[in-house]
């Protein structure tokens, strides 16, 4: 890896039934996206606790994206509706605290949307890279 080039660190939470499968499909179709994106599998987007997101930022993540089934398609019927409310409020709050709003994102990616998954990750990684390092939410102690 080139030492000088800054690459962002991105954590992606993907629900097992739609978005994680969408990510797999992106792989099956060999659709490239930056290696900056690291996926954590959760059963449903509603498993994502805002604490996980803050923890990631605190530990040095530059962007966090949550992916779930499209509204109406949740494997558990209503999980993503709760996610939608939680994230809407959390993102608004982070922005209110002066955190760049582009660092967080919630996307609906179905198991059939491999291309959307790759495109979303490309776009998000580019957006976050343009912001540069996350300095506002990071816990300096976690820096090596």
């Amino acid at each position, binding site marked *: 890896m080139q030492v000088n080039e800054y690459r962002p660190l991105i954590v992606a939470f993907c629900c097992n039934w739609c978005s994680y499968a969408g990510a*797999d499909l992106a792989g099956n179709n060999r659709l490239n996206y930056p290696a900056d994106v690291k996926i954590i599998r959760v059963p*449903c987007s509603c498993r994502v606790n805002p604490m996980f997101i803050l923890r990631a930022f605190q530990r040095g993540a530059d962007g966090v994206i949550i992916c779930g089934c499209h509204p109406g398609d949740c*494997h558990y019927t209503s999980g993503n509706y709760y996610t939608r409310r939680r994230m809407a409020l959390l993102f608004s709050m982070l922005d209110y605290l002066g955190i760049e709003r582009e660092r967080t994102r919630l996307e609906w990616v179905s198991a059939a949307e491999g291309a959307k998954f790759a495109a979303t990750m490309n776009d998000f990684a580019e957006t976050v890279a343009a912001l540069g390092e996350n300095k506002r939410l990071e816990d300096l102690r976690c820096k090596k």
Partner: protein
Amino acid sequence: MQRIGVFVCWCGTNIAGTVDVAAVSEALKSEPGVVFSTNYQYMCSQAGQDIIKDAVKEHNLTGIVVCSCSPRMHEATFRKTAAAAGLNPYMVEIANIREQCSWVHKDMLTGTEKAIILGKAAVAKVNLNTPLTPGESPVTKRALVIGGGIAGIQTALDIADAGFPVDIVEKNPTIGGKMAQLDKTFPTLDCAACILTPKMVDVAQHENIRIFSYSEVEEIGGFVGNFDVKIKKKARFVKEDICTGCGACVEKCPMKKIPNEFNLGMDNRRAVYIPFAQAVPKVATIDPSACNMLKSGKCGICSKVCTAGAIDYKQKDELIEEKYGAIVVATGFNPISMDKFDEFAYNQSRDVITSLEFERLTNAAGPTQGKLLRPSDLEHPHTIVFVQCVGSRCDACAEKGKEYCSKICCMYTAKHAMLVRDKYPDTEVYVFYIDVRTPGKNFDEFYRRAVEEYGVRYIKGMVGKITPEGDKLKVQASDLLADKQLHIDADLVVLAAAIEPDKTARPLATMLTASMDTNDFFTEAHPKLRPVESPTAGVFLSGTCQGPKDIPETVSQASAAAAKVIGLLVKDKLTGNPCIASPNELMCNGCSSCERVCPYGAITYIDKEFPQPDRTVAVRRVAQVNPAVCQGCGACTVACMSGAMDLRGFMSSQIIAEVDAICK
């Protein structure tokens, strides 16, 4: 501390082409807990699995990380491998370095680096894994079917034929439902009674089926496999087991002017009655609101004429308690009230009727013995106007009607129009339509026959106003294709009233903790993949309680629901998914947040005693998760403020460990 083995798969060149697998296995060696790390060409092959099994034994492994393809591909495989090696299958985690790494990155350096990080995250998670065992619960091998229409009948017969006992609860004195009121059925025009009544008899004679007619579900407790249900058998004041259904009591009953529900009030019945000739059970019922004996103690004629001695004026409601493994909802539909649509003069003229009333008018067992006579003067109508979509497809904000398409009206209207033209070719028949919707086998052909062979006049437009005057109904309507306003003097108008779920459905859904949409149709567990199941485990949906349906669809869904029930009842024990929510009772506040977000009603509360440091006992309300019902989505874990609720297999600490490993 865990003893973790790491197994990096090459997947031929699929992974090894862009990831330096040797570097990955080497790098992961020094992760906390890792005592063994290796790589191999195909981990999922028998030889690869043997490597894992041998390593488990040789290194006393307590946890396994496989860096390979997607867990959606081979998680199950490696869990079996672990189990074969004597490990708990849930001590396995997969790092997806193929679909989410080697296949999407081109550069070996970045690919390898990311693979290592994904491997570290998996190792961090396994460090916190605990062995999980799926919960088990017994299954009561009996099903309850709520509603005795064609949906309930078909479901009950299919389940009973598979060898399981079934109880049908029907609120009316007889089973048969709406289909028993129909005359002919589209698109084949066979008579409804001819195909329905044999099934009703089958139900009555089936050794595995009990019918609780004139009964209602009072209370439902328990969960999948173990429902406790209270059924109220309303007093019918006739001993069901003794009554022979001879009808002597009916004949002699002096109370003759009770509107007959079966014929939708178009004729009368007695205070003691049998709804129709083929009723099942064929026993009389006394209507307590009409019977003189029950109201004032004066009469008692039926008791005198009953040679079997079946009349029992002292009969009381009876409460039956029973256990069931599965519950099928088949509560059906009703046409909506026409009160709000009086531009069609339904309340002003007896000759404006609904389609269901029309069915009775053309039925040989109906109020006119099947002769098409209009209700007001029993004259033969020469001009009949059918109005489609009355109350269907209305705007959500409109003050009347339903938003959805009632689905069956186009076809039954075509049927009615065709039957009229067939029996009475001298009759002019107009059908006002918005769209004619005929998706279904032989449906459009049927509609075309009505137009082409029977000469039914289909007019694209809508009736705006009906004015009864003299013995005519003045129909004012638009003909959009001719761009004209039409004025037709009709003798009879038939309104295709929208259908809505039965009123009993909503309280039933509450008892079942099953979800409903805003129209009071039951919601399915998944609109495409689990269309006959409710999200509440063990509750299944049959027929129009789930949405508007015709008979063929209803019967298919009824059988599908039966298949699902059989699949459940055939099991001796239910094995759950072990990755379910579980509360830490010491931390639980009993605040009900988790219960509110649970889509399955899996969470309940108990008051539990907790010994305190000062030797007193404190009682607190704490959450309980029913392992047989929880599906493991995790919505509750985030709703829980204290973090008392956690999800096995995806514990907060595990996810945080992954976050930390990735962000290190």
